[in-house]
């Protein structure tokens, strides 16, 4: 596939997961950053509300990309995963805390009432949205700058991810997340016909995009002096092409936002982020960790093949489902459009007395059969039959007791 070896394929998928996480969760974290910067007052509240409502339906699905990446790496490249996770323990703990804050704040917001409460909760979201991307990008910077040796916590717990390259990566991640979020929130607002928000986030997108661009250039200088190995590989083909694509797409996004072509900007902004991940991967290839190539780290072939099959089959379920979710959100079928009211069917009594009685008896019989099979059986088939009978007991019991009893 694509001229890749089997041992590279899972990593190839994992990197797509990284890119999607950086884009989708990045936009989510970015929205949190804008909540932080919204200030106070009525307008600030509307900004924070827009950021919340826009992300709420999708944030959970967006975050599963991180899990997707983790499980592929630990299945396909166990030694590399163990080395990274143990050395980057502090960074990952920080990221975990950021993600917890984000999730809990979301849950809290669904129950909150007063404006003061909502503001406090949005501060939690914002804290999580700063910590998590910074720590995760710092961890990526640690890997890129070759600070994660092979072995059980063989690298330094702190300097591995708090060094010039990692900090630069963290700052860039925050800026690009803010940029992405602003573009997305502006586009969402336009769709919903909210001109005020569209204008507000358009300006924010222009500012954040320019700052992110400047920071990227400054960052290059930092990486050059701190992590010469990866820098040299980033500025030669093939990685250079990807880096250039990212810069172009980033600049194009600015132009598109300026010209109010927000939906096109959405796409070019995503390309800008994905190309950074691609460039990094091309620059590192074939080295995964110092002294460990992708091939050396890979699990046995049959495991890799199964993993690829699982990913492809999973994709068959995943992408249509995701498509459904995003279509509903983007097309605005989710925005308050009154549901076609159903004609209420005549209140049917849930089964007559006789059928309830039969269901009760049948349920009892199933329970007896299932219990006998499970207690006496000692191998797979009688047990499976027993579980099936007990399942039938529960289902029949539910239907027998479906009726509401009006008496106390």
């Amino acid at each position, binding site marked *: 596939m694509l001229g890749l070896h089997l041992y590279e394929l899972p990593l190839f998928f994992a990197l797509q997961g990284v890119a999607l996480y950086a884009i989708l969760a990045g936009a989510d974290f970015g929205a949190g950053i804008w909540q932080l910067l919204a200030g106070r007052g009525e307008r600030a509240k509307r900004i924070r509300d827009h950021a919340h409502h826009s992300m709420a339906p*999708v944030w959970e699905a967006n975050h*599963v990309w991180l899990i997707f990446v983790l499980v592929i790496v630990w299945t396909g490249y166990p*030694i590399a995963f163990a080395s990274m996770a*143990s*050395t980057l323990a*502090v960074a990952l703990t920080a990221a975990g805390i950021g*993600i917890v804050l984000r999730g809990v704040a979301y849950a809290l917001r669904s129950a909150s009432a007063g404006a003061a409460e909502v503001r406090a909760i949005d501060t939690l979201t914002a804290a999580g949205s700063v910590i998590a991307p910074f720590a995760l990008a710092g961890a990526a910077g640690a890997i890129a700058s070759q600070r994660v040796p092979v072995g059980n916590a063989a690298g330094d717990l702190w300097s591995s991810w708090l060094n010039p390259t990692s900090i630069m990566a963290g700052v860039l991640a925050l800026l690009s997340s803010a940029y992405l979020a602003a573009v997305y929130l502006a586009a969402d607002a336009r769709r919903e016909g909210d001109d005020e928000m569209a204008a507000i986030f358009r300006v924010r997108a222009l500012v954040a995009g320019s700052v992110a661009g400047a920071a990227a250039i400054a960052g290059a200088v930092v990486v050059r002096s701190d992590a010469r190995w990866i820098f040299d590989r980033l500025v030669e083909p093939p990685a250079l092409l990807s880096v250039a694509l990212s810069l172009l797409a980033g600049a194009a996004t600015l132009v598109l936002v300026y010209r109010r072509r927000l939906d096109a900007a959405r796409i070019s902004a995503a390309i800008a982020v994905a190309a950074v991940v691609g460039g990094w991967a091309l620059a590192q290839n074939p080295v995964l960790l110092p002294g460990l190539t992708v091939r050396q780290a890979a699990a046995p072939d049959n495991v890799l093949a199964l993993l690829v099959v699982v990913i492809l089959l*999973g994709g068959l379920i995943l992408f249509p489902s995701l498509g459904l979710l995003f279509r509903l959100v983007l097309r605005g079928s989710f925005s308050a459009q009154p549901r076609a009211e159903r004609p209420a069917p005549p209140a049917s009594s849930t089964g007559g007395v006789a059928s309830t009685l039969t269901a009760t008896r049948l349920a009892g019989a199933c329970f007896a059969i299932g219990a006998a099979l499970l207690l006496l059986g000692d191998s797979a088939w009688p047990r499976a039959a027993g579980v099936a009978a*007990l399942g039938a007991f529960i289902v029949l019991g539910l239907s027998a007791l479906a009726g509401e009893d009006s008496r106390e």
Partner: protein
Amino acid sequence: MQSLSAMFGPVQQAYLLEARQMQALSFAVHIPLVCFGIAFPAMVLRAEWLWMRTGDEIYRLLAMRWTKVMVALFACGVVTGTILSFEMGLLWPGFMGTFGAVFGLGFALEGFSFFVEAIFIGIYVYGWNRMAARAHFVSGIPIVVAGLTGSLFVLSVNSWMNDPRGFAVRNGRITDVEPFSALFRNGHLGYEIVHMYLAGFIVTGFLVAAAYAVGRLRGRWGRYERIALTIPLTVAALAAPVQVLVGDWAAREVAKTQPTKLAALEGVAHTQRGAPLHLLGWYRDGEVKAGIPVPKGLSLLAFHDPDAEVQGLDGVPAADRPPVNVVRIAFQLMVSIGTFLAVLSIWYLFARTRRKRVPSGHWFYRLLVLAGPASVLALISGWVTTEVGRQPWVVYQVMRTTEAVTAAQGIPVGYATLAAFYACLIGAVAWILRRLARAPMATVAEPEHALGDS
């Protein structure tokens, strides 16, 4: 690459115990939350289905109010699960590095279940009032299915740790890896998934019912409350008696594959025929003190033969035994609570089928209030039984926890931080639930308000 796997041998880790406690704490927070991920969507759908069947708006109101609870708990389940995924690598790199290829696939499959669950939760929640009724109901079904498959896949990993197979060890290296037979052909998966899935319904059902039972004791008891109590209670009451039978299956399987764990469950010091069962008491100096003995009870229960031989703790060297009292007390707690829940359930089922009404006495509701937290305790005790009973092995009789643990410093700091965060999380969940419970009841005619503007 000989040298690479050698880099993950046993390490000096002064805080192994703390690492294990940290893992246990994270599970103890995650697992009750995911019970709601497993069972609550089905209950919400049942309410919605009743609404579609009868057109009675009270069911719709109930489904909408419950949806809010479901979303909040789901979000907390997601983040605690994410922490767990991190911890696998943070705390147990030796385990991940050595066996990731063997069991990782289970998690990869689980990952897709989570995707489906998260996506359709998004669709379902935001689709209330925004989709045709039938389509909306159908969009909830994948959530229920994904709750089942997600548990199945993650439990395949745990059952493999307890009954490892599907690989060979040659010169200290793992070879001949067969992920599918490792994950799906081990002897523990069958009962673990059935037992855990039922536990999901038991815990969710009794907890939700307990909330309305509290209300009833305080005089809040209208038609809405009665319906809201019976839907979860009916499912839980049907599941609880079945759980006892599945528990017996679990115990017999453990007797077969993990004799030392069984010996710890029952405090059996010496290998013997016709082993007695002890209720209560504690284990010291090779015997159960102050327990009530049931002659030959253990042989009968574990092997269905009063004279069967039961291997004692002395079957293995002292270094290979789990801490007996922790395991034993946890097991006894689970079994007593399980029995209590089954009896309470039969009471309820009897009243419903024979008297055609919910029980009316105060005592039933007082016990029901107790049953909610008790079911959570049974759940955690069950896991303590399984996991602590497996000690000192992380992969039963293959890898010790000392070989699995991280070499990193600072575990106590991480532990303290995490514990503080979990305390806040639990506080947050309590606050959310109180808030949602107190949210003013929209009138039945206008259930839209029940969903607020989330």
